[in-house]
């Protein structure tokens, strides 16, 4: 039996699935930001935390206003995550009452997110249902790997929870639902204050009681956010220092302190026979262009939009290289990290930067993207065909769009050196380096500097 309400939900569900899958024609791809952007927790929370609002921020306004008048209209009629959770919940009618004793965690969660966002470090922003829904479908792109499917987990968890305890998501856990619940209460209050006519059923909490809870929620969020922010800034500073130290050592990428020191002491570093480790130890992850310099892990909602937006499948969810709080955040994997990958962060492409609903990735114009360094390449001379085997090569120079490979003649062939003032870390060099193993590898940067050297491609 299909009621009109359910038909509408089904159609919307399908539409949102198409949007999240990214199967729409290319001109429409930009709309992928719509679904997660609709959640004020993501768009407004992100803007609040990043202290920077854009057009995208406006997307969150409707769901801030609608509940004042219509309660949780969005939840029961429009939300695709809610539709999925409710549908699954119907499979287990026997346990329908199971959630009665569970408190409405989502209401607290909403306050926590907003409070911590106000403190500049949004916590648990990834519990947003639209983001979880989006993450699930955005993961279904080719080639699908265990890694790229990581962002799909939340959706599955919600459905499982709904199967065990029906309706637990919408009625108890959902932070977006919780936010709308608060707003609906506020709406009722405002109407009640204006006249007794528009009274609905009185809320269980007294006004003072509710006010206290809201304050406590915000405060808890704010304090925790501030604490995290402190640690986060420290971590970012440490990473930046690490990178600077690596650059000063002429490596441009983090290597083990101990070995670096030893190499330096034995004078092997820049000579012909160098024992450059070039392993993956202490390698800084490469963030997509436009990544927020601080608080990225907090700002990122793990919605999977940037990963789905990348036409080259370069962006994958991180599995721990950016810290525990960076789990599933987007990092770029060029060929040394993903054998199948033969593409790089193409100079004309800004797709991922346009797809972020929270501002963890700021939208970049092509010109700005070409001035932004997301990483820094490093030549491992002991692996390099030109340096080590004296063969004609410099494929890295061929591919570098920024003319950042300096050629020096050694043994009758041109050998590559990276010019740190020009290298944007796009990975073009790495994408086709013929050496086995790859002799030029891009390392991430703690911050993404805007380089002074003009891009030759502009």
């Amino acid at each position, binding site marked *: 039996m299909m009621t009109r309400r359910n038909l509408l939900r089904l159609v919307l569900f399908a539409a949102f699935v198409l949007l999240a899958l990214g199967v729409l024609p290319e001109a429409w791809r930009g709309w992928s930001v719509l679904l997660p952007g609709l959640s004020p927790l993501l768009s407004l929370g992100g803007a609040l935390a990043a202290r920077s609002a854009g057009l995208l921020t406006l997307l969150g306004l409707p769901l801030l206003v609608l509940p004042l008048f219509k309660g949780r209209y969005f939840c029961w009629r429009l939300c695709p995550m809610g539709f999925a959770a409710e549908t699954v919940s119907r499979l287990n009618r026997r346990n329908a009452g199971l959630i009665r004793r569970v408190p409405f965690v989502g209401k607290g969660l909403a306050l926590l997110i907003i409070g911590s966002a106000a403190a500049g470090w949004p916590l648990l922003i990834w519990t947003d249902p639209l983001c979880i829904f989006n993450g699930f479908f955005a993961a279904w792109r080719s080639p699908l790997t265990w890694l790229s499917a990581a962002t799909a987990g939340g959706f599955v968890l919600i459905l499982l929870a709904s199967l065990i305890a029906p309706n637990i998501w919408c009625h108890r856990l959902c932070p977006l639902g919780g936010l709308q619940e608060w707003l609906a209460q506020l709406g009722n209050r405002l109407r009640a204050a204006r006249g007794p006519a528009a009274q609905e059923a009185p809320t269980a909490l007294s006004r003072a009681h509710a006010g206290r809870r809201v304050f406590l929620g915000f405060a808890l969020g704010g304090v925790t956010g501030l604490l995290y922010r402190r640690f986060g800034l420290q971590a970012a500073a440490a990473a930046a220092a690490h990178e600077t130290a690596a650059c000063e050592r002429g490596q441009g990428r983090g290597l083990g302190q101990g070995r670096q020191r030893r190499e330096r002491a034995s004078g092997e570093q820049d000579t012909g026979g160098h024992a450059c480790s070039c392993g993956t130890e202490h390698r800084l992850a490469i963030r997509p262009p436009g990544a927020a310099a601080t608080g990225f892990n907090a700002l990122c909602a793990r919605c999977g939009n940037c990963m789905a937006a990348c036409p080259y499948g370069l962006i994958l969810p991180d599995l721990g290289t950016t810290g525990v709080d960076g789990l599933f955040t987007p990092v770029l994997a060029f060929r040394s990290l993903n054998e199948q990958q033969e593409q790089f962060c193409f100079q004309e492409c800004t797709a991922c930067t346009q797809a972020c609903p929270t501002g963890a990735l700021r939208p970049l114009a092509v010109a700005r993207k070409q001035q932004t360094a997301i990483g820094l390449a490093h030549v491992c001379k002991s692996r390099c065909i030109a340096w080590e085997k004296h063969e004609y090569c410099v494929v890295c120079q061929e591919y570098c769009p920024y003319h950042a490979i300096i050629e020096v003649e050694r043994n009758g062939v041109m050998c590559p050196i990276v010019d740190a003032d020009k290298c944007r870390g796009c990975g073009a060099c790495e994408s*086709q380096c013929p*050496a*086995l193993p790859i002799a030029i590898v891009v390392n991430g940067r703690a911050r993404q500097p805007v380089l002074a050297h003009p891009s030759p491609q502009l």
Partner: protein
Amino acid sequence: MNAVKRRSFLKTSASAAAVGAWQTTPLGAQESAAPAATVIVVHGTDIPKMLAAGIAKLGGWGAFIKPGMKVAIKPNVAWNSKPEQGGNTHPDLVRACVLAAQAQGAAKISLPENTCHPEKSTFQASGVADALKGTQARLYRPAKEDYQKVEIPKGKIAKSAGVPKDILECDCLINMPVAKHHSGATLTLSMKNWMGSVANEDRRAWHRDGLHQCIADFNTFIRPKLVIIDATRIMLTKGPQGPGDLEHPHELILSTDPVAADAYAATLFKKAPFDIAYIQLGHEMGVGCGDLAKIKVERIEA
């Protein structure tokens, strides 16, 4: 420039090359007074007119394309670079050639190109996608299944390579590179242009194993009916991607001998042909004649 390197090439390859090459064409012809190869150099500014004039000199399109033939053209459209930057074969040249093939009644015209930059941007920026609008030609980047592994019987190092099926199965193969500087190979001309055809893993292997020898090896296998080098503008530095310094010779170089065409084109860059190791190796292996003294250069104006 690379004397040491060239000498080592000679050492490793000269003996075998001498045995292989001298017995086969076209070098056998050089003992007589007749030139070993002919290169037509057309000077002008109107590319379609230049092409028509050059082809007329070679006996007209009928000598190359007969009705119903499958034609494959290998332009150099590898980089996201504008026509005036000289990174890719000029779109007007590609179009003129495709239109001629159509007029000859070609059954199929394919332009497989393993681009270095993402194909969509590359085909668009190069102007070639637009130039081919409304024609029957298909410009595309071959997918894995479009390749076929082939043996290179005369190859010294490169013994096999993945080549697009359309190139293997065609009746008339036309090589249409742009002449430009190349950081790894000094210059990229017609022989080097085939690196834009073969599969990525072959490209990488060639760099590892000896780039110039592998280019020459592959050219013993692939035999285009016609070579048309776009030298309307040539990139002198920062090649192959550019943008670099440009010069405008306003020339098209046509030949049926890829080594001869490359040998002449090298002179535009003020290089002796045998300064480019793959030209010398191609000459020695009998791919064609790279000795300028034995090449007849016919200059025409169009």
